[in-house]
Protein backbone atom coordinates (compact mmCIF):
# COMPACT_ATOMS: atom_id res chain seq x y z
CA UNK A 1 0.00 0.00 0.00
CA UNK A 2 1.45 3.36 -0.97
CA UNK A 3 1.76 6.13 1.57
CA UNK A 4 -0.88 8.09 -0.33
CA UNK A 5 -3.36 5.20 -0.27
CA UNK A 6 -2.59 4.58 3.40
CA UNK A 7 -3.21 8.23 4.31
CA UNK A 8 -6.36 8.35 2.18
CA UNK A 9 -7.81 5.29 3.89
CA UNK A 10 -6.62 5.84 7.42
CA UNK A 11 -7.16 9.58 7.62
CA UNK A 12 -8.86 11.47 4.81
CA UNK A 13 -11.44 8.90 3.72
CA UNK A 14 -11.97 7.67 7.23
CA UNK A 15 -15.63 7.25 8.34
CA UNK A 16 -14.64 7.57 12.01
CA UNK A 17 -12.87 10.87 11.40
CA UNK A 18 -15.79 12.23 9.40
CA UNK A 19 -18.35 11.13 11.97
CA UNK A 20 -16.32 12.50 14.88
CA UNK A 21 -15.79 15.86 13.23
CA UNK A 22 -19.35 16.05 12.03
CA UNK A 23 -20.85 15.16 15.41
CA UNK A 24 -18.52 17.45 17.35
CA UNK A 25 -19.00 20.42 15.10
CA UNK A 26 -22.74 19.97 14.81
CA UNK A 27 -24.75 22.35 16.92
CA UNK A 28 -28.20 20.92 17.63
CA UNK A 29 -29.53 24.15 19.13
CA UNK A 30 -31.89 26.51 17.36
CA UNK A 31 -30.59 29.05 14.85
CA UNK A 32 -30.82 31.79 17.49
CA UNK A 33 -28.75 29.84 20.00
CA UNK A 34 -26.23 28.87 17.33
CA UNK A 35 -25.96 32.47 16.21
CA UNK A 36 -25.56 33.50 19.85
CA UNK A 37 -22.68 31.05 20.40
CA UNK A 38 -20.90 32.15 17.22
CA UNK A 39 -21.46 35.79 18.10
CA UNK A 40 -20.01 35.27 21.59
CA UNK A 41 -16.88 33.61 20.14
CA UNK A 42 -16.52 36.36 17.55
CA UNK A 43 -17.01 39.03 20.20
CA UNK A 44 -14.46 37.47 22.53
CA UNK A 45 -11.86 36.98 19.82
CA UNK A 46 -12.69 40.34 18.25
CA UNK A 47 -12.15 42.14 21.56
CA UNK A 48 -8.89 40.31 22.11
CA UNK A 49 -7.71 41.09 18.58
CA UNK A 50 -8.79 44.73 18.88
CA UNK A 51 -6.90 45.40 22.09
CA UNK A 52 -3.76 43.57 20.99
CA UNK A 53 -3.66 45.29 17.59
CA UNK A 54 -4.40 48.66 19.15
CA UNK A 55 -1.69 48.12 21.74
CA UNK A 56 0.91 47.02 19.19
CA UNK A 57 0.16 49.81 16.73
CA UNK A 58 0.76 52.34 19.47
CA UNK A 59 4.19 50.91 20.25
CA UNK A 60 7.38 51.32 18.28
CA UNK A 61 9.51 49.13 20.50
CA UNK A 62 10.52 45.84 18.86
CA UNK A 63 10.68 44.09 22.20
CA UNK A 64 7.02 44.87 22.87
CA UNK A 65 6.03 42.95 19.74
CA UNK A 66 8.16 39.99 20.75
CA UNK A 67 6.84 40.04 24.32
CA UNK A 68 3.25 40.26 23.09
CA UNK A 69 3.86 37.36 20.73
CA UNK A 70 5.28 35.28 23.56
CA UNK A 71 2.30 36.17 25.73
CA UNK A 72 -0.10 35.04 22.98
CA UNK A 73 1.81 31.80 22.56
CA UNK A 74 1.81 31.30 26.34
CA UNK A 75 -1.94 31.84 26.46
CA UNK A 76 -2.55 29.37 23.62
CA UNK A 77 -0.28 26.82 25.21
CA UNK A 78 -1.98 27.14 28.59
CA UNK A 79 -5.38 26.70 26.92
CA UNK A 80 -4.12 23.65 25.02
CA UNK A 81 -2.79 22.06 28.20
CA UNK A 82 -6.10 22.63 29.93
CA UNK A 83 -8.37 21.60 27.05
CA UNK A 84 -6.57 18.67 25.44
CA UNK A 85 -7.06 16.07 28.20
CA UNK A 86 -10.79 16.81 28.36
CA UNK A 87 -11.18 16.69 24.59
CA UNK A 88 -9.31 13.45 24.01
CA UNK A 89 -9.80 11.29 27.08
CA UNK A 90 -13.46 10.61 26.26
CA UNK A 91 -12.78 9.43 22.71
CA UNK A 92 -13.13 5.72 23.39
CA UNK A 93 -14.60 5.57 26.89
CA UNK A 94 -17.64 7.40 25.57
CA UNK A 95 -18.09 4.64 22.97
CA UNK A 96 -17.77 2.06 25.75
CA UNK A 97 -20.26 3.88 27.95
CA UNK A 98 -22.86 4.29 25.24
CA UNK A 99 -22.19 0.68 24.19
CA UNK A 100 -21.23 1.45 20.61
CA UNK A 101 -17.61 0.34 20.95
CA UNK A 102 -18.31 -3.31 20.25
CA UNK A 103 -20.34 -2.40 17.18
CA UNK A 104 -17.50 -0.25 15.93
CA UNK A 105 -15.03 -3.06 16.49
CA UNK A 106 -17.25 -5.39 14.56
CA UNK A 107 -17.18 -3.32 11.35
CA UNK A 108 -14.62 -3.71 8.57
CA UNK A 109 -12.67 -0.73 9.86
CA UNK A 110 -9.04 -1.37 10.67
CA UNK A 111 -7.51 -0.61 14.05
CA UNK A 112 -5.58 2.21 12.41
CA UNK A 113 -8.71 3.74 10.95
CA UNK A 114 -10.49 3.75 14.30
CA UNK A 115 -7.58 4.96 16.44
CA UNK A 116 -6.14 7.44 13.95
CA UNK A 117 -9.63 8.64 12.97
CA UNK A 118 -10.45 9.49 16.56
CA UNK A 119 -7.06 11.07 17.18
CA UNK A 120 -7.10 13.12 13.97
CA UNK A 121 -10.61 14.43 14.67
CA UNK A 122 -9.59 15.65 18.10
CA UNK A 123 -6.29 17.09 16.96
CA UNK A 124 -8.16 18.92 14.20
CA UNK A 125 -10.43 20.49 16.82
CA UNK A 126 -7.46 21.48 18.98
CA UNK A 127 -5.73 22.95 15.95
CA UNK A 128 -8.73 25.21 15.53
CA UNK A 129 -7.49 26.96 18.64
CA UNK A 130 -4.14 27.56 16.97
CA UNK A 131 -5.91 28.77 13.85
CA UNK A 132 -8.04 31.20 15.86
CA UNK A 133 -4.95 32.77 17.41
CA UNK A 134 -2.66 32.48 14.41
CA UNK A 135 -3.46 35.84 12.72
CA UNK A 136 -2.81 37.85 15.89
CA UNK A 137 0.27 35.78 16.66
CA UNK A 138 1.53 36.45 13.15
CA UNK A 139 0.76 40.15 13.51
CA UNK A 140 2.69 40.44 16.79
CA UNK A 141 5.60 38.49 15.38
CA UNK A 142 5.73 40.59 12.22
CA UNK A 143 5.54 43.71 14.36
CA UNK A 144 8.73 42.76 16.16
CA UNK A 145 10.38 41.46 13.02
CA UNK A 146 9.68 44.54 10.91
CA UNK A 147 10.68 47.02 13.59
CA UNK A 148 13.96 45.42 14.53
CA UNK A 149 14.76 42.10 12.92
CA UNK A 150 18.21 41.93 14.39
CA UNK A 151 17.48 43.36 17.82
CA UNK A 152 18.24 41.33 20.89
CA UNK A 153 15.18 39.36 21.93
CA UNK A 154 13.64 39.48 18.45
CA UNK A 155 11.86 36.35 17.34
CA UNK A 156 13.50 34.69 14.36
CA UNK A 157 11.69 32.71 11.68
CA UNK A 158 13.26 29.56 13.06
CA UNK A 159 12.07 30.33 16.57
CA UNK A 160 8.59 31.11 15.27
CA UNK A 161 8.44 27.78 13.44
CA UNK A 162 9.98 25.87 16.37
CA UNK A 163 7.39 27.31 18.74
CA UNK A 164 4.54 26.07 16.58
CA UNK A 165 6.29 22.75 16.19
CA UNK A 166 6.51 22.41 19.98
CA UNK A 167 2.83 23.27 20.27
CA UNK A 168 1.85 20.77 17.59
CA UNK A 169 3.98 18.04 19.14
CA UNK A 170 2.53 18.84 22.56
CA UNK A 171 -0.98 18.56 21.11
CA UNK A 172 -0.03 15.22 19.55
CA UNK A 173 1.50 13.92 22.78
CA UNK A 174 -1.24 15.14 25.12
CA UNK A 175 -3.97 13.97 22.74
CA UNK A 176 -2.37 10.56 22.26
CA UNK A 177 -1.93 10.08 25.99
CA UNK A 178 -5.59 11.04 26.54
CA UNK A 179 -6.64 8.59 23.84
CA UNK A 180 -4.35 5.93 25.32
CA UNK A 181 -6.03 6.25 28.71
CA UNK A 182 -9.42 6.27 27.03
CA UNK A 183 -8.47 3.05 25.27
CA UNK A 184 -7.46 1.22 28.43
CA UNK A 185 -9.96 2.59 30.93
CA UNK A 186 -13.67 1.97 30.99
CA UNK A 187 -15.03 5.24 32.35
CA UNK A 188 -14.69 8.70 30.85
CA UNK A 189 -14.35 10.25 34.30
CA UNK A 190 -11.35 8.08 35.15
CA UNK A 191 -9.79 8.67 31.74
CA UNK A 192 -10.15 12.44 32.06
CA UNK A 193 -8.81 12.39 35.61
CA UNK A 194 -5.92 10.23 34.44
CA UNK A 195 -5.18 12.50 31.50
CA UNK A 196 -5.11 15.64 33.67
CA UNK A 197 -3.01 13.86 36.26
CA UNK A 198 -0.56 12.91 33.54
CA UNK A 199 -0.35 16.26 31.73
CA UNK A 200 -0.63 18.65 34.64
CA UNK A 201 0.11 16.46 37.63
CA UNK A 202 3.07 14.56 36.23
CA UNK A 203 4.48 16.41 33.20
CA UNK A 204 4.10 19.91 34.59
CA UNK A 205 4.19 19.62 38.37
CA UNK A 206 5.57 16.15 39.02
CA UNK A 207 8.69 16.51 36.90
CA UNK A 208 9.48 19.88 38.49
CA UNK A 209 8.84 18.55 41.97
CA UNK A 210 11.11 15.55 41.49
CA UNK A 211 13.76 17.84 40.05
CA UNK A 212 13.47 20.15 43.06
CA UNK A 213 13.83 17.21 45.40
CA UNK A 214 16.84 15.96 43.48
CA UNK A 215 18.30 19.45 43.54
CA UNK A 216 17.87 19.51 47.30
CA UNK A 217 19.39 16.09 47.74
CA UNK A 218 22.40 16.65 45.58
CA UNK A 219 22.67 20.41 46.17
CA UNK A 220 23.22 20.78 42.48
CA UNK A 221 22.30 24.18 41.10
CA UNK A 222 22.35 22.84 37.54
CA UNK A 223 19.97 20.02 38.25
CA UNK A 224 17.26 21.66 36.12
CA UNK A 225 19.56 21.50 33.14
CA UNK A 226 20.82 18.03 33.82
CA UNK A 227 17.72 16.15 34.92
CA UNK A 228 16.19 14.51 31.82
CA UNK A 229 12.83 14.38 33.56
CA UNK A 230 12.70 18.17 33.37
CA UNK A 231 13.38 18.15 29.65
CA UNK A 232 9.96 16.68 29.00
CA UNK A 233 8.23 19.26 31.16
CA UNK A 234 6.00 21.16 28.70
CA UNK A 235 6.41 24.45 30.56
CA UNK A 236 10.17 24.02 30.42
CA UNK A 237 10.03 23.17 26.75
CA UNK A 238 7.94 26.19 25.96
CA UNK A 239 10.21 28.35 28.02
CA UNK A 240 13.23 26.94 26.16
CA UNK A 241 11.72 27.67 22.78
CA UNK A 242 10.55 31.14 23.75
CA UNK A 243 13.81 32.07 25.48
CA UNK A 244 16.48 30.03 23.73
CA UNK A 245 19.24 32.05 25.32
CA UNK A 246 17.89 31.60 28.83
CA UNK A 247 19.46 28.23 29.50
CA UNK A 248 22.71 26.67 28.38
CA UNK A 249 22.10 23.69 26.09
CA UNK A 250 18.45 24.79 25.71
CA UNK A 251 18.37 23.67 22.09
CA UNK A 252 19.62 20.22 22.92
CA UNK A 253 17.09 19.81 25.73
CA UNK A 254 14.36 21.08 23.45
CA UNK A 255 15.22 18.58 20.75
CA UNK A 256 15.31 15.85 23.38
CA UNK A 257 11.90 16.90 24.68
CA UNK A 258 10.36 17.12 21.21
CA UNK A 259 11.77 13.76 20.18
CA UNK A 260 10.52 12.25 23.42
CA UNK A 261 7.02 13.56 22.75
CA UNK A 262 7.08 12.23 19.22
CA UNK A 263 8.47 8.83 20.14
CA UNK A 264 6.18 8.37 23.12
CA UNK A 265 3.20 9.34 20.96
CA UNK A 266 4.21 6.85 18.28
CA UNK A 267 4.79 4.19 20.92
CA UNK A 268 1.34 4.69 22.41
CA UNK A 269 -0.26 4.65 18.96
CA UNK A 270 1.63 1.51 18.05
CA UNK A 271 0.54 -0.14 21.30
CA UNK A 272 -3.08 0.75 20.73
CA UNK A 273 -3.14 -0.30 17.09
CA UNK A 274 -1.03 -3.41 17.57
CA UNK A 275 -2.98 -4.65 20.55
CA UNK A 276 -6.26 -3.34 19.27
CA UNK A 277 -8.38 -6.37 18.44
CA UNK A 278 -6.72 -8.55 21.03
CA UNK A 279 -7.19 -6.08 23.85
CA UNK A 280 -10.48 -4.63 22.72
CA UNK A 281 -11.96 -8.08 22.28
CA UNK A 282 -10.83 -9.43 25.60
CA UNK A 283 -11.67 -6.28 27.56
Amino acid at each position, binding site marked *: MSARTFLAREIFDN*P*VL*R*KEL*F*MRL*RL*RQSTQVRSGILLAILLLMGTFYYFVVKFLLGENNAEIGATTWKAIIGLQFTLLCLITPAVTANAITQEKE*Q*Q*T*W*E*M*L*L*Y*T*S*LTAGEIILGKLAARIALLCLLLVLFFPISLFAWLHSLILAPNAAGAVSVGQFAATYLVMLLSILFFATSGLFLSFYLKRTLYAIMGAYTFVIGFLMIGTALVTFILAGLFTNERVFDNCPLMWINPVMMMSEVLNPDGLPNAKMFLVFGMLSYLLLSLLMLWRMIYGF*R*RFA*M*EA
Partner: protein
Amino acid sequence: MPMVEIKHLRKEYKDKPEPAVKDLSLELEQGDIFGFIGPNGAGKTTTIKMLATLLIPTAGTALVDGIDVVKNPEKIRSIIGYMPDFLGVYDDIKVWEYLDFFAAAYRIPKDRRPQIIDDVLALTDLNVKKDSYVESLSRGMKQRLCLAKTLVHDPKVMLLDEPASGLDPRARIEIRELLKELQSMGKTIIVSSHILPEMEEFCNKVGIIERGEMIVAGDVNTIARQVRGHQNISIGVVDDIERAAAILQGMTDLIRDVKVTNGLRQLNDADGGEGRGQTLQRESFSTKGSVLQVGYIGEPDNEYKILTTLVEAGIKVRAFYTPETDLEDVFLRVTKGQVA
Protein backbone atom coordinates in the same frame (compact mmCIF):
# COMPACT_ATOMS: atom_id res chain seq x y z
CA MET B 1 -21.10 -27.27 3.11
CA PRO B 2 -22.73 -26.09 6.34
CA MET B 3 -23.13 -22.32 6.66
CA VAL B 4 -21.98 -22.42 10.27
CA GLU B 5 -19.75 -25.20 11.52
CA ILE B 6 -18.51 -25.13 15.10
CA LYS B 7 -16.27 -27.90 16.40
CA HIS B 8 -15.25 -28.37 20.03
CA LEU B 9 -15.24 -24.66 20.73
CA ARG B 10 -13.88 -23.66 24.10
CA LYS B 11 -13.39 -20.34 25.82
CA GLU B 12 -11.57 -19.74 29.07
CA TYR B 13 -11.23 -16.42 30.85
CA LYS B 14 -8.18 -15.70 32.94
CA ASP B 15 -10.19 -14.51 35.91
CA LYS B 16 -12.65 -17.40 35.96
CA PRO B 17 -11.83 -20.93 37.09
CA GLU B 18 -14.41 -22.60 34.87
CA PRO B 19 -14.47 -22.22 31.09
CA ALA B 20 -17.29 -20.05 29.78
CA VAL B 21 -17.79 -22.41 26.85
CA LYS B 22 -16.56 -25.98 26.65
CA ASP B 23 -16.52 -28.40 23.78
CA LEU B 24 -19.36 -26.77 21.90
CA SER B 25 -20.15 -28.21 18.50
CA LEU B 26 -22.87 -27.18 16.09
CA GLU B 27 -23.75 -27.27 12.40
CA LEU B 28 -26.23 -25.01 10.68
CA GLU B 29 -27.34 -24.98 7.06
CA GLN B 30 -28.22 -21.91 5.02
CA GLY B 31 -31.64 -20.59 6.00
CA ASP B 32 -31.60 -22.17 9.44
CA ILE B 33 -32.92 -20.11 12.30
CA PHE B 34 -31.13 -21.36 15.36
CA GLY B 35 -32.45 -20.47 18.78
CA PHE B 36 -29.72 -20.34 21.37
CA ILE B 37 -31.28 -20.94 24.75
CA GLY B 38 -29.75 -20.96 28.17
CA PRO B 39 -29.80 -19.30 31.56
CA ASN B 40 -27.87 -16.11 32.19
CA GLY B 41 -24.15 -16.79 32.24
CA ALA B 42 -24.53 -20.07 30.37
CA GLY B 43 -22.16 -19.04 27.58
CA LYS B 44 -24.54 -17.87 24.85
CA THR B 45 -23.07 -14.41 24.47
CA THR B 46 -19.50 -15.74 24.67
CA THR B 47 -20.26 -18.19 21.85
CA ILE B 48 -21.88 -15.50 19.75
CA LYS B 49 -18.95 -13.16 20.36
CA MET B 50 -16.49 -15.83 19.30
CA LEU B 51 -18.41 -16.27 16.06
CA ALA B 52 -18.48 -12.50 15.67
CA THR B 53 -14.67 -12.37 15.93
CA LEU B 54 -14.92 -10.31 19.10
CA LEU B 55 -13.45 -13.02 21.29
CA ILE B 56 -10.70 -15.46 20.43
CA PRO B 57 -11.56 -19.08 21.22
CA THR B 58 -9.20 -20.88 23.58
CA ALA B 59 -9.61 -24.06 21.55
CA GLY B 60 -11.73 -25.50 18.76
CA THR B 61 -12.71 -24.12 15.39
CA ALA B 62 -15.59 -22.10 14.05
CA LEU B 63 -16.21 -21.76 10.33
CA VAL B 64 -18.78 -19.50 8.76
CA ASP B 65 -19.40 -20.18 5.08
CA GLY B 66 -16.18 -22.17 5.18
CA ILE B 67 -14.12 -19.29 6.58
CA ASP B 68 -12.30 -19.64 9.87
CA VAL B 69 -13.35 -16.92 12.32
CA VAL B 70 -9.90 -16.75 13.91
CA LYS B 71 -7.80 -16.92 10.77
CA ASN B 72 -9.79 -14.48 8.67
CA PRO B 73 -11.78 -12.15 10.95
CA GLU B 74 -12.00 -9.34 8.36
CA LYS B 75 -13.70 -11.61 5.85
CA ILE B 76 -15.98 -12.99 8.55
CA ARG B 77 -17.10 -9.50 9.56
CA SER B 78 -18.15 -8.84 5.99
CA ILE B 79 -20.45 -11.86 5.86
CA ILE B 80 -21.83 -11.80 9.38
CA GLY B 81 -24.20 -9.28 10.86
CA TYR B 82 -23.83 -8.99 14.61
CA MET B 83 -26.36 -7.36 16.88
CA PRO B 84 -25.22 -7.19 20.51
CA ASP B 85 -27.51 -7.66 23.46
CA PHE B 86 -27.69 -3.96 24.28
CA LEU B 87 -28.76 -0.82 22.51
CA GLY B 88 -25.67 0.97 21.32
CA VAL B 89 -26.62 4.05 19.40
CA TYR B 90 -24.94 7.40 18.91
CA ASP B 91 -26.84 10.45 19.98
CA ASP B 92 -26.58 13.68 18.02
CA ILE B 93 -26.92 11.78 14.80
CA LYS B 94 -29.85 11.19 12.49
CA VAL B 95 -31.15 7.76 11.61
CA TRP B 96 -29.89 7.87 8.03
CA GLU B 97 -26.53 9.28 9.16
CA TYR B 98 -26.15 6.44 11.63
CA LEU B 99 -26.78 3.89 8.90
CA ASP B 100 -24.57 5.78 6.46
CA PHE B 101 -21.71 5.68 8.97
CA PHE B 102 -21.98 1.93 9.40
CA ALA B 103 -22.38 1.41 5.66
CA ALA B 104 -19.15 3.38 5.17
CA ALA B 105 -17.55 1.35 7.94
CA TYR B 106 -18.43 -1.79 5.98
CA ARG B 107 -16.78 -0.20 2.93
CA ILE B 108 -19.96 0.12 0.91
CA PRO B 109 -19.32 2.61 -1.91
CA LYS B 110 -20.80 6.05 -1.37
CA ASP B 111 -23.06 5.93 -4.44
CA ARG B 112 -24.71 2.69 -3.27
CA ARG B 113 -25.37 3.76 0.29
CA PRO B 114 -28.56 5.85 -0.14
CA GLN B 115 -30.41 2.96 -1.81
CA ILE B 116 -29.20 0.47 0.80
CA ILE B 117 -30.24 2.79 3.61
CA ASP B 118 -33.70 3.17 2.09
CA ASP B 119 -33.99 -0.59 1.71
CA VAL B 120 -33.02 -1.46 5.28
CA LEU B 121 -35.23 1.31 6.62
CA ALA B 122 -38.14 -0.08 4.64
CA LEU B 123 -37.41 -3.58 5.90
CA THR B 124 -37.31 -2.44 9.49
CA ASP B 125 -40.27 -0.14 8.98
CA LEU B 126 -38.36 2.97 9.96
CA ASN B 127 -38.72 4.98 6.72
CA VAL B 128 -40.68 7.70 8.43
CA LYS B 129 -37.92 8.14 10.98
CA LYS B 130 -35.16 8.56 8.41
CA ASP B 131 -34.49 12.18 9.33
CA SER B 132 -35.20 11.84 13.05
CA TYR B 133 -32.45 11.97 15.61
CA VAL B 134 -31.59 8.55 17.00
CA GLU B 135 -32.12 9.67 20.59
CA SER B 136 -35.74 10.53 19.82
CA LEU B 137 -36.59 6.92 18.90
CA SER B 138 -38.39 4.56 21.25
CA ARG B 139 -36.52 1.55 22.58
CA GLY B 140 -38.25 -0.75 20.11
CA MET B 141 -37.34 1.55 17.24
CA LYS B 142 -33.74 1.74 18.40
CA GLN B 143 -33.66 -2.03 18.47
CA ARG B 144 -34.96 -2.11 14.91
CA LEU B 145 -32.41 0.52 13.94
CA CYS B 146 -29.70 -1.73 15.36
CA LEU B 147 -31.08 -4.53 13.26
CA ALA B 148 -31.11 -2.23 10.22
CA LYS B 149 -27.48 -1.40 10.93
CA THR B 150 -26.74 -5.11 11.09
CA LEU B 151 -28.24 -5.52 7.63
CA VAL B 152 -26.49 -2.72 5.73
CA HIS B 153 -23.78 -4.99 4.35
CA ASP B 154 -26.25 -7.75 3.46
CA PRO B 155 -24.74 -10.44 5.68
CA LYS B 156 -25.27 -14.13 4.98
CA VAL B 157 -25.35 -14.99 8.67
CA MET B 158 -26.86 -12.93 11.44
CA LEU B 159 -25.93 -13.20 15.09
CA LEU B 160 -28.62 -11.66 17.23
CA ASP B 161 -27.94 -11.59 20.93
CA GLU B 162 -31.20 -11.14 22.84
CA PRO B 163 -32.83 -8.99 20.14
CA ALA B 164 -36.12 -8.75 22.01
CA SER B 165 -34.63 -8.11 25.41
CA GLY B 166 -36.30 -5.35 27.38
CA LEU B 167 -38.90 -4.63 24.74
CA ASP B 168 -42.61 -4.23 25.31
CA PRO B 169 -44.96 -6.84 23.77
CA ARG B 170 -45.65 -4.77 20.65
CA ALA B 171 -41.99 -4.15 19.97
CA ARG B 172 -41.27 -7.83 20.55
CA ILE B 173 -43.89 -8.80 18.02
CA GLU B 174 -42.37 -6.34 15.54
CA ILE B 175 -38.92 -7.83 16.00
CA ARG B 176 -40.35 -11.31 15.65
CA GLU B 177 -42.08 -10.39 12.40
CA LEU B 178 -38.87 -8.86 11.16
CA LEU B 179 -36.94 -12.02 11.90
CA LYS B 180 -39.53 -14.03 9.99
CA GLU B 181 -38.99 -11.70 7.05
CA LEU B 182 -35.24 -12.22 7.27
CA GLN B 183 -35.84 -15.95 7.42
CA SER B 184 -37.82 -15.72 4.21
CA MET B 185 -34.86 -13.90 2.65
CA GLY B 186 -32.72 -16.97 3.25
CA LYS B 187 -30.51 -15.57 5.98
CA THR B 188 -29.01 -17.97 8.46
CA ILE B 189 -29.79 -16.58 11.88
CA ILE B 190 -28.47 -17.45 15.29
CA VAL B 191 -30.64 -15.81 17.90
CA SER B 192 -30.39 -16.00 21.63
CA SER B 193 -33.38 -15.19 23.76
CA HIS B 194 -35.06 -15.93 27.04
CA ILE B 195 -38.53 -15.69 25.56
CA LEU B 196 -38.89 -19.32 24.69
CA PRO B 197 -42.40 -19.42 23.18
CA GLU B 198 -41.27 -16.84 20.61
CA MET B 199 -38.17 -18.84 19.79
CA GLU B 200 -40.31 -21.87 19.32
CA GLU B 201 -42.39 -20.04 16.77
CA PHE B 202 -39.72 -19.05 14.30
CA CYS B 203 -36.69 -21.24 15.05
CA ASN B 204 -36.37 -24.47 13.14
CA LYS B 205 -33.44 -25.52 15.32
CA VAL B 206 -32.60 -24.82 18.92
CA GLY B 207 -29.70 -25.49 21.21
CA ILE B 208 -29.84 -25.46 24.97
CA ILE B 209 -26.64 -24.45 26.70
CA GLU B 210 -25.85 -24.59 30.38
CA ARG B 211 -22.56 -23.95 32.18
CA GLY B 212 -20.87 -23.58 28.83
CA GLU B 213 -22.00 -26.96 27.54
CA MET B 214 -24.47 -27.56 24.76
CA ILE B 215 -26.88 -29.99 26.38
CA VAL B 216 -29.08 -30.59 23.36
CA ALA B 217 -29.18 -29.13 19.86
CA GLY B 218 -31.20 -29.79 16.76
CA ASP B 219 -34.71 -29.68 15.42
CA VAL B 220 -37.20 -28.38 18.00
CA ASN B 221 -39.58 -31.34 17.78
CA THR B 222 -36.76 -33.85 17.79
CA ILE B 223 -35.31 -32.30 20.90
CA ALA B 224 -38.68 -32.27 22.62
CA ARG B 225 -39.10 -35.89 21.68
CA GLN B 226 -35.63 -36.77 22.95
CA VAL B 227 -36.20 -34.98 26.21
CA ARG B 228 -39.68 -36.24 26.90
CA GLY B 229 -39.20 -39.63 25.31
CA HIS B 230 -42.36 -39.19 23.25
CA GLN B 231 -44.17 -36.82 20.89
CA ASN B 232 -47.46 -35.31 21.97
CA ILE B 233 -50.34 -35.67 19.55
CA SER B 234 -53.77 -34.18 20.16
CA ILE B 235 -56.77 -35.86 18.62
CA GLY B 236 -60.19 -34.25 18.73
CA VAL B 237 -63.13 -36.61 18.29
CA VAL B 238 -66.80 -35.85 17.90
CA ASP B 239 -68.07 -38.77 20.01
CA ASP B 240 -67.09 -42.30 21.07
CA ILE B 241 -64.23 -40.95 23.11
CA GLU B 242 -63.91 -44.04 25.27
CA ARG B 243 -63.79 -46.37 22.25
CA ALA B 244 -61.23 -44.16 20.55
CA ALA B 245 -59.12 -44.18 23.71
CA ALA B 246 -59.35 -47.95 23.93
CA ILE B 247 -58.24 -48.37 20.31
CA LEU B 248 -55.27 -46.10 20.87
CA GLN B 249 -54.27 -47.82 24.10
CA GLY B 250 -54.12 -51.05 22.12
CA MET B 251 -51.45 -49.61 19.79
CA THR B 252 -48.65 -50.21 22.28
CA ASP B 253 -45.94 -50.25 19.63
CA LEU B 254 -46.75 -46.63 18.71
CA ILE B 255 -48.40 -45.12 21.76
CA ARG B 256 -47.10 -44.88 25.29
CA ASP B 257 -50.15 -43.37 26.99
CA VAL B 258 -53.49 -41.80 26.23
CA LYS B 259 -55.22 -39.12 28.28
CA VAL B 260 -58.74 -37.85 27.82
CA THR B 261 -59.17 -34.15 28.37
CA ASN B 262 -62.18 -31.97 27.87
CA GLY B 263 -62.27 -28.78 25.85
CA LEU B 264 -62.71 -26.45 28.80
CA ARG B 265 -59.47 -27.54 30.43
CA GLN B 266 -57.66 -27.22 27.16
CA LEU B 267 -58.77 -23.63 26.81
CA ASN B 268 -57.58 -22.76 30.31
CA ASP B 269 -54.23 -24.40 29.73
CA ALA B 270 -53.72 -22.60 26.48
CA ASP B 271 -54.68 -19.27 27.91
CA GLY B 272 -52.23 -19.58 30.73
CA GLY B 273 -48.79 -18.45 29.66
CA GLU B 274 -47.24 -15.28 28.43
CA GLY B 275 -46.62 -15.14 24.73
CA ARG B 276 -48.87 -18.07 23.94
CA GLY B 277 -51.34 -16.24 21.71
CA GLN B 278 -50.69 -18.56 18.81
CA THR B 279 -51.22 -21.60 20.97
CA LEU B 280 -54.49 -20.20 22.27
CA GLN B 281 -55.91 -19.96 18.75
CA ARG B 282 -55.00 -23.51 17.91
CA GLU B 283 -56.14 -25.04 21.17
CA SER B 284 -59.41 -23.15 21.07
CA PHE B 285 -60.26 -25.14 18.00
CA SER B 286 -60.49 -28.27 20.09
CA THR B 287 -62.86 -26.99 22.73
CA LYS B 288 -66.06 -28.19 21.08
CA GLY B 289 -65.61 -31.79 22.00
CA SER B 290 -63.28 -34.10 23.86
CA VAL B 291 -59.61 -34.31 23.11
CA LEU B 292 -57.28 -37.25 23.41
CA GLN B 293 -53.71 -36.50 24.40
CA VAL B 294 -51.51 -39.20 22.95
CA GLY B 295 -47.89 -39.88 23.87
CA TYR B 296 -46.51 -41.08 20.53
CA ILE B 297 -43.33 -43.15 20.63
CA GLY B 298 -43.20 -44.44 17.03
CA GLU B 299 -41.13 -43.17 14.15
CA PRO B 300 -41.60 -39.45 13.40
CA ASP B 301 -43.14 -40.12 9.97
CA ASN B 302 -45.59 -42.79 11.11
CA GLU B 303 -48.09 -40.64 13.00
CA TYR B 304 -50.52 -41.11 10.13
CA LYS B 305 -50.99 -44.74 11.20
CA ILE B 306 -52.87 -43.59 14.29
CA LEU B 307 -55.22 -41.48 12.22
CA THR B 308 -55.77 -44.25 9.69
CA THR B 309 -56.58 -46.75 12.44
CA LEU B 310 -59.11 -44.41 14.05
CA VAL B 311 -60.82 -43.54 10.80
CA GLU B 312 -60.97 -47.17 9.73
CA ALA B 313 -62.57 -47.97 13.11
CA GLY B 314 -65.33 -45.44 12.34
CA ILE B 315 -64.21 -42.82 14.85
CA LYS B 316 -65.22 -39.32 13.73
CA VAL B 317 -61.91 -37.51 14.00
CA ARG B 318 -62.41 -33.77 14.12
CA ALA B 319 -58.80 -32.71 14.63
CA PHE B 320 -55.41 -34.37 14.54
CA TYR B 321 -52.34 -32.34 15.27
CA THR B 322 -49.10 -32.11 17.18
CA PRO B 323 -49.43 -29.23 19.61
CA GLU B 324 -46.80 -26.52 19.84
CA THR B 325 -43.72 -27.94 21.44
CA ASP B 326 -43.48 -26.50 24.89
CA LEU B 327 -39.91 -25.26 24.76
CA GLU B 328 -40.16 -23.98 28.31
CA ASP B 329 -40.99 -27.45 29.49
CA VAL B 330 -38.07 -28.88 27.52
CA PHE B 331 -35.77 -26.17 28.85
CA LEU B 332 -36.73 -26.82 32.43
CA ARG B 333 -36.31 -30.55 32.00
CA VAL B 334 -32.78 -30.38 30.60
CA THR B 335 -31.29 -27.50 32.57
CA LYS B 336 -30.44 -27.34 36.22
CA GLY B 337 -30.34 -23.56 36.59
CA GLN B 338 -26.57 -23.48 36.95
CA VAL B 339 -24.23 -20.99 35.39
CA ALA B 340 -20.58 -21.31 34.43
